[in-house]
């Protein structure tokens, strides 16, 4: 059984292509059924987010399945194979496991350490469970990846701290107001940065967003772009600011619009209600001295960028710790795979011993037939127990072998020593037939940049 990953991500494909290879348009469930129908995989899971579309598979022959899955990607999404080929990566064996673990840990994300990806990986696995395309190998693989995601989150600071200005602004607002639901945001100026920050606040559930601009038409257009926001004329600036909890200023004015005296006048009727002003305009829209006012929190673009830089620096030191967790879990998964790869040999060995036992019992049939029935049963039991005892230690040893190569050597030796043949398809196990030992491929495949 080999592990295989075929897919594209923000590292290899432009957004235009990622949009076309988005599994959500036709549904992950349908994709999984189509993959299963092709018959080239034993197990399959589709991980589909806006930054990646990846197919994880367990199969018998990675080379043919890989080609088949790339063909599937192009057929299923109606993308020409030649368009797709330069962007697709095809990763095999433990490298595929490492890739998934890095994805689940947020190490492969566009914004390193972002928290959504773990949930998306979990959804992907659930979808495959529902479509009954996930089997023992991928179940184990994905559960290990959840463990990686959880450990990265709890044991490292990879996910902590905002890493973009608008995110940092929203995080600060949350530290001041707690829940942002029910809060009002005023945006002064109709520029792009103001819009972006307002959109971010909106995604955190703020109650109202009001845009105030010198040109009413600009304000209205920005309000429309944000959606469910209102616009107000310049003359109403003080009224709007009076009702707001968070103010984002982003005008192109040459001198401060909000002087300390003006802000003080705004604060008086608010009594104790805090006001958070995010001044992302250059030159600044708010007089820096206004920051001295009690219950007023004033941050300008440089302040926010400084916190972002700090967070990014902190994250990069955490990456190494997260990578160490990934490596640890890959080793653990590899050990599990190895113990699995010994299974065919174990099965063959058991069948061989059992065959010998039965043959001997049959050979001695004429002597045994004189015994009473319960004595015969005892003979059968005792011989069975002897075989079990003889096989116990070798079985355990075989399963706990450290290196993949060693497993192969031992299997080879056992096959020769006991003249093992391919085990018959065993009842009750999901093991594939095949006496030859193929633990997992160690092909090192490249990840296109």
């Amino acid at each position: 059984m080999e592990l295989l990953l075929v897919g594209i991500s923000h590292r290899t494909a432009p957004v235009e292509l990622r949009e076309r290879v988005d599994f959500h348009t036709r549904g992950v469930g349908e994709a999984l059924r189509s993959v299963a129908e092709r018959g080239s995989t034993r197990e399959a899971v589709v991980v589909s987010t806006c930054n990646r579309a990846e197919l994880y598979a367990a199969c018998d022959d990675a080379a043919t399945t890989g080609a088949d899955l790339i063909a599937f990607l192009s057929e299923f999404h109606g993308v020409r194979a030649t368009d797709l080929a330069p962007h697709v990566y095809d990763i095999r064996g433990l490298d595929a496991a490492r890739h998934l673990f890095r994805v689940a840990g947020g190490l492969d994300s566009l914004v390193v350490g972002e928290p959504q990806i773990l949930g998306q990986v979990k959804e992907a696995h659930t979808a495959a469970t529902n479509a009954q395309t996930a089997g023992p190998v991928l179940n184990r693989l994905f559960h290990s990846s959840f463990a990686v995601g959880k450990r990265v989150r709890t044991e490292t600071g990879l996910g902590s701290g905002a890493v973009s200005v608008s995110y940092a602004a929203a995080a600060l607002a949350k530290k001041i107001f707690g829940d942002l639901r029910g809060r009002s945001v005023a945006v002064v100026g109709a520029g792009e940065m103001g819009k972006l920050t307002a959109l971010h606040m909106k995604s955190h559930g703020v109650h109202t967003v009001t845009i105030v601009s010198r040109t009413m038409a600009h304000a209205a257009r920005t309000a429309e772009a944000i959606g469910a926001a209102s616009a107000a004329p310049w003359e109403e600036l003080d009224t709007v600011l009076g009702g707001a909890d968070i103010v984002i200023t982003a005008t192109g004015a040459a001198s401060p619009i909000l002087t300390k005296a003006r802000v003080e006048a705004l604060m008086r009727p608010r009594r104790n209600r805090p006001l958070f002003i995010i001044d992302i305009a250059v030159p600044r829209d708010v007089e820096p001295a206004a920051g001295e006012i009690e219950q007023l929190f004033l941050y300008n673009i440089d302040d926010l960028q400084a916190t972002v830089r700090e967070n990014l620096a902190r994250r990069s030191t955490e990456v190494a710790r997260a990578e160490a967790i990934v490596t640890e879990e890959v080793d653990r998964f590899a050990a599990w795979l190895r113990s699995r790869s010994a299974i065919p040999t174990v099965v063959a060995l058991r069948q061989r011993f059992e065959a010998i036992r039965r043959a001997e019992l049959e050979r001695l049939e004429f002597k045994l037939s004189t015994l009473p029935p319960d004595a015969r049963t005892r003979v059968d039991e005792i011989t069975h127990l002897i075989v079990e005892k003889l096989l116990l230690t070798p079985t355990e040893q075989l399963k706990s072998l450290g290196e993949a190569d060693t497993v192969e050597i031992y299997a080879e030796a056992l096959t020769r020593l006991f003249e093992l043949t391919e085990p018959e398809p065993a009842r009750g196990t999901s093991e594939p037939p095949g006496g030859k030992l193929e633990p997992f491929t160690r092909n090192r495949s490249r990840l296109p940049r």
Partner: protein
Amino acid sequence: MMNAVPLALYAAAFVAYAWHFGRRNPVIGRTATTLLIAAALSHTFVIGMQTMEAGHVPVGGATSAISTFVWLLAVAYLYTELTTDERAMGVFILPLLVALQTIPAITPGAEEHAAVLQGPLFGVHVSSLLFAYASFALACVIGITYVLLFKEIKAKHLGFFYARLPSLQVLDRMNQRAIVIGWVFLTVGMLVGAVWALQARGGYAAGDPRVQAMSLQDPKIFVALVCWFVYSFELFAARRIGWGGRRAAYLSALGFAIVLLNLVPISYFLTKSHNF
């Protein structure tokens, strides 16, 4: 001496809370809570034993009142932690518990229960006030953390406390709630105490010099009244003149400093009316 067991557990819980505050490891956090629960349970056992021994809850003397106060504060803190799922405050509360619990732990033997201290009103008086003080202790700690976070955000230096404390709004609301609850119990406790003193003076305990000393000139009663004014002002200021946030936090700290003064040094050395 039985009070040493809860003291040891409180100290252990303090170490765990401090460790958790620094490292933010959830396992250590759960350990800290578990240790504190163990401490509170053992403390409950100690107080229960003393109750059975004496036939009433041990609140008659300054030392046992402090022990009961520590127990109440631990339980009140545990309640807020479990309902808000916010563990950051523990590192500030625990030192107070450890310091106060040291007093009953090193005081030998049980106190004599003065015969004059009886009747249902006396029980209401002491338990209301101890509960009020526990609320004020929580409010004080919440206020301190508010100021720490406030300063970090104002100074645009988002660091240690920023990463660990809940939002300013949440802290402010928790502070206000603790003050309201504390104020209600303080008021009830003082009124009931006054009524009890009047009854005692006019009745069975007329001859007791301590009961006779119960007037506004007594330091313990006077300071309690000062406390009441401080907290009343804080409530009024928050609602009428917008003195929330940092100013309310400072007032909470001031109020609780007075409470502590009243609870320990005044009880032991100054009061003539409350030295039981």
